[in-house]
């Protein structure tokens, strides 16, 4: 049996008020050790105020080949951006 520790993805909240962001991955036997290791590997200089870890095998990702069908439909819907609409200056700030 392989003794290689499973891989975990690490997410760090850099400051209060920000989202957790993916920063990398590491190996650890369980979630508790993954958090401890993440502290040593990714926050040696106070880069975070909170850590999430999740087993890499538990992550489902969209496939690169689906990029077109998934994201391209938004291309033709530019009216979702406020800059699509011309509002006269006289109407005031909007």
């Amino acid at each position: 049996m392989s003794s290689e520790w499973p891989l975990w993805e690490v997410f760090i909240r850099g400051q209060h008020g920000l989202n957790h962001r993916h920063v990398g991955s590491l190996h650890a036997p369980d979630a508790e050790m993954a958090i401890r290791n993440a502290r040593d590997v990714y926050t040696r200089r106070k880069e975070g105020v909170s850590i999430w870890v999740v087993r890499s095998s538990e992550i489902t990702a969209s496939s690169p080949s689906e990029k077109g069908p998934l994201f391209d439909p938004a291309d033709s819907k530019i009216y979702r951006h406020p800059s699509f609409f011309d509002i006269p200056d006289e109407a005031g700030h909007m």
Partner: protein
Amino acid sequence: MYAQLVKTDEKRLKSLGEMDPQERAFQGRIDRGEKIEPKEWMPEGYRKTLIRQISQHAHSEIVGQLPEGNWITRAPTLERKAILLAKVQDEAGHGLYLYCAAETLGISRDEMFEQLHSGRAKYSSIFNYPTLSWADIGAIGWLVDGAAIMNQVPLQRCSFGPYSRAMIRICKEESFHQRQGFDIMMKLCKGTEAQQKMAQDALERWWWPSLMMFGPADGDSVHSAQSMAWKIKQDTNDELRQKFVDQTVPQADFLDLKVPDPDLKWNQERGSYDFGEPDWDEFFQVISGNGPCNEERLGARVKAWDDGAWVREGLMAHARKHARRTTLAAAE
């Protein structure tokens, strides 16, 4: 450079016309400066070259802890000891960022360790030299980390996303390493005659091995040309070496130390220093396992891995047992 000899498996550089449509589209993305992410299509050669380069780089960070580790218990003050400890811990961190980046390409951590421990994988020749005095710790920070920064700054723009992001993190931390080294040298150079001598001796022993860190002249190396076309590598070895010499010689002057190169001379016309040729026979000897400390370094690394096996297995057994209990409790 921490990855000094990276082969690409390519016999010659393909022109766009010779590439199949998938390869051409890939090269187009690289040329437009797009980052390549792990699950996207990439030529097999690109994948293999990156695995080689990133794992060599990671191994260098890990083995690089050993020469400095030698001085943690011998540092002259408690503050110096704490600083050195933090620096060596950073090197371990850098190794881990890089192993993660390599793993996204489909090689496992254990496979990489196996390649290192069996002697099949290379790591930087620089770490096979002994650290004989405290001044060596200064010289390593100043010269070795200085050379590493020179190499790593352009790698932040590497085409492979995970490698580029790892390099950005590493570069942020690396500057501390160089400055702590220079600080040690400054202190010694302002000290007693014996301390100045110690600093000069360290510079003499580390200067040439530091220049070798950039690897041999690329000449018209196919590997280099291919790596540059793929934007895995941005500058030639000679360009980086020249930059390093130009930056470092004035620092040695500042310290009142003499660079051990009789051919070193300012070239007004080029606006750069002319300098001598490193001993490439020595380089090839050291990189292929016959340096002064290769055996000791690899031996220490293998011993640490073997001695730690029971901890790795024990923690894994504990995690499995704990997971089983949680499942059973949930079923009740």
